């Protein structure tokens, strides 16, 4: 790569950067060149020198200019009287000085009068908010309440937590030769024979920083796919095996694979003996899941299950990319446990061409810097008596040991009851939890947060959540407007990191980190020795716990840092904090039988639970609501509820679509393009029919994240946020024993033509 980040070309100033936030998406950090003239962003181009993305960009970054200069963008701070919440006409522009003065005064007032715990931080996903929400909440504001309002923290939370419990390491990402500049051509790098894509759509989602199209790179070189997905997405259509399973039955499927691999002796004995704990018990357990039974549960023919499991186990190199559908299920911990067991007993963990563990990252927002696992460390930075006051602190001990975020489903109930204290102030950081992005039963969240005395929202555009609930709006810069840092997997498996380089100024926007530093410097100077983002990055990037120390300025010039990361780190003592070989679990081994699950009252072995309202579990409900509803698949042109006002992108997917099989459409008398309601015992949503053979009869997929920026902003309409809101139909607190998981992927609904 070029060793500079700024140059002249064709009369433009070119600023090279790693794209990330805002807009959202995950920290993929795609290489981008921003072409600037007279202080204005004129065009963007993919950076062909970036070792991972090689010049490629997805439509969202290609539409960056439209996003940056969109007339609806809010680029100055605003305030509104709390009595006018929901009224778009009452916003009034203010100066940053006034904004800061009010914020400091409010935080001090609520802290002194009621305690810091009466302030609550809400974080959104996929933006830089994820890197700095902990810093903002626990250190700058000083509250123990940081909330990701996702029922069962069902996005990566369960997967990462299970990794911490049973693997004692961060999220194991598929190996797409990201360690090497010469990538797939690197001598000795083994191309995986199979990649399993399990409940994941990596091309559209680039989840957590995985550059999704690397799967296509590998397919072109000969990698074969095994797809486990209820939908025929494009990858599934090209898979050698597509296991089109009934939504919500993933745990049974994984147990079925384990059954095949263990019964047929296809596992790696040496690895199992040396590095796992509880194999005998697991082998006993999987006997309860013979393939014929699993075929009945999942609707996938037994022979197909066997063939896929064998192909995966026998491949010299293979990996599993498992996605958010493993989280959005009350069975979540067991799904991830079983999938990790599959990787472990076939010796894929940290093996070349398998599932690679990250090296120690310079910055781990939800754990300790220099460690990849997600263990709650807040008790170390904040006074224990305050940490103990967080909502739900005494519920769900298993959850508390791992997660910094307060448990959202319990939190909602505490907020509704105003127990054990009344919440006074909310801080909504790049979150739009009322749109069907994350919160189950969003109207309950609306009503609960409406009771707070004072709410601040920070974002690039007005969103329905901030419109409904906030009294102050602080404008956030896009990645073209800030200096920051893109680290894939938020540090939990940092395949690379790179700098985000400021190219332009737009109005008075600031970064999430600048906000946290400003508040921290004022209210907790003892915790904030840094007063600029650059000083903060230097402190982190020079972290002695990591091998590749660098300053921010050097990182800018370098462009992308591929951190030193050897395979088989567990053999050489690079996973555990104490430097001993093995994994960071109670036994030092990968726990197929989890002592921590056991300690927290959960079954130590994986098991299957039937979706609560399925025809099997609850025939009465299912006869009223016969269709299985799944939701959450992404498209290429939006990030959850984001980008709805970007016309170039909206033109590709203009409406919320409900996918159904032609047989289902016929049965319900609806045709392609018709507006229909789906409805169940909790609510309804209006979406537009898309008839496709790409989904099984009897199953419908509804898009999430829909609101309509072109419609009436003020309450009660709120840009139509309730109209097509699929999460109206998802109940809160229907989770697993440990407090993880939710039924987003396996609800039951009925369907009828919309007449309004």
């Amino acid at each position: 790569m070029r060793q500079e980040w700024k140059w002249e070309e064709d009369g433009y100033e070119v600023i090279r950067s790693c794209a990330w936030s805002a807009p959202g998406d995950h920290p993929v950090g795609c290489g981008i060149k921003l072409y600037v003239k007279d202080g204005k962003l004129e065009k963007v181009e993919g950076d062909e020198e970036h070792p991972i993305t090689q010049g490629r960009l997805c439509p969202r970054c290609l539409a960056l200019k439209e996003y940056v200069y969109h007339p609806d963008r809010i680029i100055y701070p605003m305030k509104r009287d709390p009595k006018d919440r929901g009224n778009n006409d009452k916003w009034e522009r203010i100066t940053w000085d006034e904004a800061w003065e009010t914020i400091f005064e409010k935080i001090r007032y609520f802290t002194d009068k009621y305690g810091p715990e009466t302030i609550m931080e809400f974080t959104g996903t996929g933006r830089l908010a994820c890197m700095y929400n902990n810093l903002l909440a626990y250190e700058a504001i000083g509250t123990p309440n940081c909330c990701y309002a996702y029922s069962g923290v069902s996005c990566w939370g369960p997967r990462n937590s299970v990794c911490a419990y049973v693997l004692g390491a961060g999220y194991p990402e598929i190996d797409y030769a990201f360690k090497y500049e010469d990538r797939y051509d690197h001598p000795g790098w083994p191309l995986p024979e199979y990649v399993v894509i399990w409940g994941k759509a990596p091309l559209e989602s680039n989840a957590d920083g995985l550059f999704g199209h690397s799967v296509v790179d590998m397919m072109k070189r000969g990698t074969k796919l095994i797809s486990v997905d209820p939908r025929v997405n494009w990858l599934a259509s090209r898979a050698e095996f597509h296991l089109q399973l009934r939504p919500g039955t993933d745990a049974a499927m994984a147990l079925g694979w384990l059954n095949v691999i263990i019964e047929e002796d296809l596992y790696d004995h040496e690895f199992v003996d040396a590095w796992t704990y509880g194999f005998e018990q697991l082998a006993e357990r999987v006997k309860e899941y013979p393939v014929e039974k699993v075929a009945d549960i999942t609707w996938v023919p037994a022979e197909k299950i066997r063939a896929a499991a064998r192909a995966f186990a026998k491949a010299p190199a293979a990996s599993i990319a498992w996605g958010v559908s493993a989280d959005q299920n009350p069975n979540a911990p067991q799904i991830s446990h079983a999938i990790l067991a599959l990787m472990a007993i076939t010796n894929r963990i940290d093996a070349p061409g398998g599932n690679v563990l990250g090296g120690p990252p310079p910055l781990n927002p939800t754990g300790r810097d220099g460690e990849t696992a997600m263990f709650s460390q807040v008790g170390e930075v904040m006074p224990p008596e305050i940490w103990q006051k967080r909502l739900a602190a005494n519920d769900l001990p298993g959850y508390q040991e791992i997660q910094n975020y307060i448990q959202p489903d319990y939190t909602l109930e505490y907020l509704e009851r105003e127990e054990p204290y009344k919440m006074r102030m909310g801080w909504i950081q790049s979150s739009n939890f009322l749109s069907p992005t994350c919160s189950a039963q969003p109207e309950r969240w609306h009503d609960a947060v409406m009771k707070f005395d004072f709410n601040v929202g920070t974002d690039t555009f007005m969103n329905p959540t901030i419109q409904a609930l906030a009294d102050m709006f602080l404008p956030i810069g896009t990645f073209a407007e800030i200096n920051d840092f893109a680290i894939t997997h938020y540090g939990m498996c940092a395949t690379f990191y790179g700098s985000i380089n400021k190219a332009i100024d737009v109005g008075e926007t600031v970064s999430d980190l600048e906000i946290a530093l400003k508040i921290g410097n004022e209210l907790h100077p003892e915790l904030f020795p840094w007063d600029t983002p650059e000083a903060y990055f230097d402190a982190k990037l020079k972290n002695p716990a990591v091998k590749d120390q660098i300053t921010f300025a050097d990182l800018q010039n370098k462009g992308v840092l591929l951190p030193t990361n050897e395979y088989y780190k567990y053999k050489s003592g690079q996973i555990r904090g104490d430097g001993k070989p093995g994994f960071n679990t109670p036994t030092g081994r990968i726990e197929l039988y989890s002592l921590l699950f056991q300690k927290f009252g959960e079954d130590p072995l994986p098991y299957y639970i039937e979706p609560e309202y399925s025809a099997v579990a609850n025939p009465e409900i299912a006869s009223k609501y016969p269709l299985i509803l799944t939701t959450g698949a992404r498209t290429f042109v939006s990030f959850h509820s984001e980008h709805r006002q970007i016309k170039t992108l909206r033109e590709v997917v203009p409406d919320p679509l409900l996918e159904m099989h032609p047989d289902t459409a016929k049965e319900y008398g609806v045709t392609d393009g018709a507006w229909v309601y789906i409805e169940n015992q909790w609510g309804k949503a209006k979406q537009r029919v898309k008839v496709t053979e790409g989904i099984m009869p009897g199953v419908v997929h509804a898009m999430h994240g829909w609101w309509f920026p072109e419609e009436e902003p003020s309450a009660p309409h709120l840009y139509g946020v309730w109209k097509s809101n699929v999460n109206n139909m998802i109940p809160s607190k229907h989770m697993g024993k440990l407090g993880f998981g939710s039924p987003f992927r396996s609800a039951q609904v009925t369907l009828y033509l919309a007449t309004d």
Partner: protein
Amino acid sequence: MSLKGYGLLIDYEFCSGCHSCEVACKNERNIPLGKWGIKVETIGPWKAEGDRYEFNHIPCPTSLCNLCEERIAKGKKPSCVHHCLCQVMDYGPIDELAKKAAEKGSKVVMFLP
């Protein structure tokens, strides 16, 4: 410089339908909403034979495509080719593209817009 005799080759076996070519082209050629210099058309998914599904995306250049003559003059690749997430687009003289198409053997299309 005349781009007669040049074309676009697309390996649609591996086109994921990501729409990057569409937006890259709109940026380059300043094409308004509702019009395209290249547009992705989709066939499927529907069951073809046995277990296999037909599901292909095929980006079709329109008469607004000028093969990025300005970029070519500067020694760059066409914008769609440069940004294509699957790296399935190629630009070049027809005979070279035809050779590549023959090497690929199937599921490949050449456009001379």
